[in-house]
Each structure stands twice: as C-alpha cells, then as structure tokens.
C-alpha cells in the first residue's frame, strides 16, 4: 500500500503557502538579508534577453486536474487525494476545438494524476482522433496499481499509442519512498514491468516510455546522460525493466517544494545554488517559449509553474474559450524568481535537459 509521508496538500491544510501570492512574496522578497540575489529579469538582461517572447507554438500542455493518489513532498502542483479541482467535459471540449485548430504538434496531459479525471479516457479518445503527432500522458506509475479500475491503463495507453512519461525518483527503494511515500517504489516497478509487457519502452518499440527524474532534496540534478545510464543499468539488472529516455528536471522553488525548502532551512542556499548555476545557454530553450499551459478551469499560462503561481498569460486572451493563437503569440512571457529553476545548469524543462 502506498503511504505518503505528508498526508495533505497545502490547500487542505489551509497553509499560507497555498496562496500563490504568498509564494510570490517569498520568491520576490526572499528570506534574504537584503537584495543579495539578482532578479531573474536583471540576470537575463545580462545575457542579452530583455524579455521572453514565444516562438512558434509546439506543445499544448493541459492540466486536467489537481487530484492525485500521491502526496509527494516536492509536488509543485500541491496535488493529492484531497484536491477536487477537475477539468469538466465542457472545458475539455473547448480544448479539443483548440487542438484541432492550433499549430501545436504535441499534446501533453498532466495533473495531478490525469488518469483520475473521470473524463480522462473520453478525452484521450477524442483528442487522438485529431491526429496529434506526439500525445503524452504524464503518469505517476503508481496510479496503474492503485485500484482495479486502473489496471488496464497500460492496454488503454497502447490502444491510443500514448507516449507515457513517468516520474521515477530513483532506482533504489529507499530514495524513492522517501520522496514519494512508502510503497511507491514497489508499485512503480510493477507498473513499469506491466508497461514493458505491452511493449512499452522496449528497444526499437514505438510505444514510447520515458522517465522523469527529480532530485529528492534540496540539490540540483546533474548529468542527465550519466543518470540515464545508472537508471538503465540498475533497472535492467535488478528488475529486468527497460525504458527509452530519462529527463532530469530541477525542482522549482514553489508550492510544496518551497514549503520543504523553508522548513528544512534550505531555501536561501537553494536559491543561491540556482543563481550560481544560471546558464545563459539554457535561456534560449526554456519551455515557455514553445508551450502553452491550460489549467483545469481553462485559464491559459506560459507554463505549468506559472499556472501554480496563478500568473496568467499577459494577453488579451486569457481563457481557452476565447483562444486566438495570433493574439497569444504576441504576448510577453511572465517571469519571476522561480524561473531560475529553468536556467540552472544544463537547464531543464518538462522535457528534461535542454542545453
């Protein structure tokens, strides 16, 4: 049985940090001893970027709800079983209209655990009829083993040729369970084996299975390629599991990860580490430049992180119901101190290292 270390979302606990404004206040004013950290705006200016503006839209990321079967300590969504925000069929219908007409070639469904939205399967069926090139579902793996009604998810994914991107904190039980709750490792291993059985992640298979690695603590990920090798070796030797790619992602200092950073007195050091690891080469490839993020209630954001901080797109068009790509492409991307997380080291986006 999966047993989370923290039991409730910030939202449910009525914690101050459940208010995006409070998070932004901390990010902007810091718990610093006065103006030591350069603002992200200043920093990108030094690298020759006055602002961020969108390139051609490639990825539409849709967050179909904050409900999740896990309560991971680092969750930037503040997701959990106690979150009830769920995208309705009506909003999904609006998304389908947009998918049909937008220039995006990749559809990326996320949550929470997107599979927990009761309209999830209907949406996948409808969206796949529209012929997106790459149809990604962000699965936390344990959902496949959480309840009988999800046991057939691997078959369902296969039927629609879904590209499964799964979070896997580490190739060892200890590190994985510490970040995500007791039992998560064993359930994830079982789920990966089931995906492999359907052909997912096998060499040469077009059923794509990629893993996402986030550090399980107040440190940055390093060496995506080396990490991928370690994961591949260990999972194959220990559990006969295969997968295609591994993306290493930096934890952004927002939501429950921000809570953890403050509580463990790591916030200041972590922010310094992000600023120190600032890599001008990563700036050109931050994911907000080719992505749009849609929230469960249809609002539009530059990325999933901005969504959680309630920083809506700086555009006349702010809701999926009034979607207009030409107008949206003219916007400036909304940035703040959390953006340092996307430009640290090799840089990372929802697709992993970018530079």
């Amino acid at each position, binding site marked *: 049985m999966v047993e989370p270390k923290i039991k409730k979302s910030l939202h449910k606990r009525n914690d101050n940090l459940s208010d995006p404004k409070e998070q932004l206040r901390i990010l902007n004013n810091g718990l610093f001893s006065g103006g030591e950290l350069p603002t992200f705006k200043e920093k990108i200016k030094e690298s020759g970027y006055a602002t961020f503006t969108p390139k051609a839209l490639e990825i539409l990321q849709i967050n179909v709800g904050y409900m999740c079967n896990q309560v991971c300590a680092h969750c930037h969504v503040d997701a959990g079983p106690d979150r009830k925000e769920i995208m309705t069929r009506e909003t999904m219908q609006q998304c389908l209209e947009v998918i049909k007409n937008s220039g995006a070639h990749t559809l990326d469904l996320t949550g929470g655990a997107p599979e927990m939205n009761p309209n999830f399967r209907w949406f996948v069926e409808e969206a796949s009829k529209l012929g997106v090139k790459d149809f990604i579902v962000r699965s936390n793996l344990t959902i496949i083993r959480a309840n009988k009604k999800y046991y057939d998810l691997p078959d369902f994914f296969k039927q629609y040729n879904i590209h499964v991107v799964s979070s896997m904190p580490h190739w060892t039980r200890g590190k994985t369970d510490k970040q995500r709750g007791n039992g998560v490792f064993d359930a994830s291993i079982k789920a990966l084996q089931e995906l492999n059985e359907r052909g997912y992640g096998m060499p040469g298979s077009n059923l794509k299975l990629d893993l996402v690695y986030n550090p399980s*603590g107040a*440190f*940055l*990920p390093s*060496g995506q390629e*080396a990490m991928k090798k370690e994961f591949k070796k260990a999972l194959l030797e220990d559990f006969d599991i295969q997968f295609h790619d591994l993306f290493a992602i930096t934890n952004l200092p927002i939501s429950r990860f921000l809570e953890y950073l403050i509580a463990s007195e790591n916030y200041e050091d972590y922010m310094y580490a992000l600023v*120190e690891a600032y890599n001008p080469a990563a700036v050109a490839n931050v994911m907000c430049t080719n992505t749009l993020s849609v929230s469960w209630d249809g609002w539009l954001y530059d990325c999933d992180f901005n969504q959680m901080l309630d920083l809506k797109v700086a555009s006349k068009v702010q809701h999926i119901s009034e979607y207009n790509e030409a107008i949206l492409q003219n916007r400036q991307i909304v940035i703040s101190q959390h953006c340092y997380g996307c430009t640290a080291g090799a840089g990372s986006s929802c697709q992993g290292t970018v530079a």
Partner: protein
Amino acid sequence: MSKTYYDPSDLRKFGKITEWSEELGEKFFEYYGKVFEEGALSAREKALIALAVAHTEQCPYCIDAYTKDTLERGVTKEEMMEAVHVGAAIKSGATLVHGVMMMNKVNKLDL
C-alpha cells in the same frame, strides 16, 4: 563577524580566490575543472573519490561541496558512507604501516 573559524557561506566565495592572483587562480580552476571531467573514470566515480578524500583531508568546505555533488549525481547514502570508509581505511592503514618504520627503528636502537 562569525566567531568560528569556518563559515559555510565562505564556500560560495571560493571563486574570489582569483582576485588577488588572477593568473595562478585561473590556472588552478582550469586544472580543477579538467580533473573532474568525464574521462577514463566517470564524473560520478571522481565525485566519490573526492568525497572520500574530502574526509581524509577533513576539509569542511570539500565535505559540504562533495556531499552535495554526489547527491546531485544520484549517489545513495550507502555508497557515500562506503567511500568514506575507504578513505578511513587508507588513512588508518597509512598510520599503521608507518608502525613498521617505528619497529625498524626500535629494532635498530634497542639492544
């Protein structure tokens, strides 16, 4: 002013060492950077060696830096502690093996 000899935030200022002797400082950092590049040994293996040496050198800054560095590379705490034991074993072995020198000297001097 901190009342201890070591201040953790000094580690962040390490790069400033070049300010008072730019050429030598930069040469050092260039060498240092090269040493830790992926080579015949992987960067991960080098980080574990550095962690063990940091302990035998008992440099708090290096312990701080390489604990973080190994964590960043996905090294587990069991692996980290084993590396420290390797350092400790070499250090104690090195102490003990000098005992042979002492024994030689005693044998020479003692009637």
